[in-house]
């Protein structure tokens, strides 16, 4: 399939990235080329292959589910572009 301008608009919305109108065409053609290139994987029959989940044989370990930190509101908010009364501040979401 070919990846067109409207697909890019749709993906960009999903990814929450604003793409200026004049860049859509170029981006669609670049992405179409990359997707066309990765599609060479279709040459390989993988019907009997299980997808790889992890490269190393590591068993995930259990730990007690307990609070190990807290009381650090100021440190957490220190890098916030906007904050208000101990919270991150964002544009109004409810009228």
């Amino acid at each position, binding site marked *: 399939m070919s990846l067109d301008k409207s697909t890019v608009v749709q993906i960009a919305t999903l990814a929450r990235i604003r793409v200026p109108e004049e860049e859509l065409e170029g981006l669609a053609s670049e992405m179409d080329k990359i997707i066309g290139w990765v599609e060479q994987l279709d040459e390989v029959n993988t019907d009997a292959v299980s997808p790889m989940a992890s*490269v190393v044989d590591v068993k995930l370990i259990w730990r007690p589910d307990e609070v190990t930190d807290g009381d650090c509101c100021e440190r957490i908010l220190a890098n916030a572009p906007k904050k208000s009364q101990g919270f991150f501040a964002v544009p109004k979401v409810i009228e």
Partner: protein
Amino acid sequence: MSELNHLTMAQARDGLAKGEFSSAELTQAHIAALEVSRGLNAFVTETPERAMKAAQESDARRAKDRDEPGSMEGLPIAIKDLFCTEGVLTTASSHILDSFTPPYESTVTANLWRAGAVMLGKTNMDEFAMGSATVTSYYGPTVNPWQRKDDDKPLVPGGSSGGSASAVAARAALGATGTDTGGSIRQPASFCGIVGVKPTYGRCSRWGIVAFASSLDQAGPMTRTVRDGAIMLGAMAGYDPKDSTSADKPTPNFETALEQKVKGLKVGIPEEYNMEGMSRDLLALWDRGKEWLTAAGTEMVPVSLPHTKYALPTYYIVAPAEASSNLARYDGVRYGFRAEGETLQEMYENTRGEGFGAEVRRRVLIGTYVLSAGYYDAYYLKAQKLRALISEDFREAFEKVDVLLTPTAPSPAFAIGEKMDDPIAMYLNDVFTVPASLAGLPAISLPAGLSSDGLPLGLQLIARPFDEETMFCTARTVEEAANFDVEPALMVGA
């Protein structure tokens, strides 16, 4: 005390132990070198005051307890700007992390400071480690200290750990940390004529490293000698309960491993790495590598890794997919850059639209596409199956051989501005490094010779999982035989 910045890490360590100079003097020499080399744009942030304070503290520790110094006591190094450093700006060379000052320290850097190392500053890189030339940085490209014969056109240092590679090659740091997702330590090491080590996935903790593709990202050292790489990896590695993929294994003494005998080892030569269009220089260098190792008593064994040609397209599904998910956190709410908008959605879109550069945007969009409803099986699942086959190729090869010898990169460093129009041409830089990344294997690049136009070329050694020891001792043998002693044109104190 001049030329302290020309010592290797091991020489500096021994000089400090003998009291020939102090860490303050050693660090001062590197700060001076770093200032002289500013034209390379290797650093995003310099931290000279912090460095001098740490060096003086190191000298005080040594005076108090001379017998038990840390393994990197008093040694000044640079840190890739992808590692979170408490109280020091950490940007991932992205506009979207503008003014981000982490309130915590990454495990790898914390390990280095515990071993006594001194931080000179944070190095430039491709934005979010996405690139092979350090040209996608928001802070501008880094310059390679090497130049072509009879041509002073600025060359790329490779990437993404290009600032680290450039700083180490220019003698502005004894060593530097890098991270490698598909070749981001080994390829810049090859381009800058230094040693770069990507350890086994799980050897170094990823905690506190800005995430790109979590199933591939690994931290490693970039140094001027194999021994220095062994010293520095020893200080960086170790189990960390904060990273669930960190391996609960003891860290071997990598420096001792350098003395292991290579005689009798079987060295695999993967036939698929002999690719069309490879330069004669590179093929000749690969042949010399085989001769050196044969002379040292190892046996060359041809092996086949049949799925090699699918490694790059597999990588360019897996890595962007994981990146699109990891980079979802940059939303202008909790840290970094924010562009305002009328609604929350608009604020997100404006922030991410303005905050990400072109290559990062392209990869997040590709990743979003291959993970989107209806395409997941066709792309992501398919790639994970290919990854299993690629990994199986290596497993079979390592039943017959102990280590693999290959070139590191298909070409020497190219000029800044080249390969910019075609993303796939840029991706091909990593053709020899990506397969080992997909399989999580340890690999090292070391400088072994020069191209016909006078630029360094690297050879790569790949070993079994968690067998960095065989990788290091084989690399040491190649290093000794190659006797690479050419220095870059733009080196400090040349």
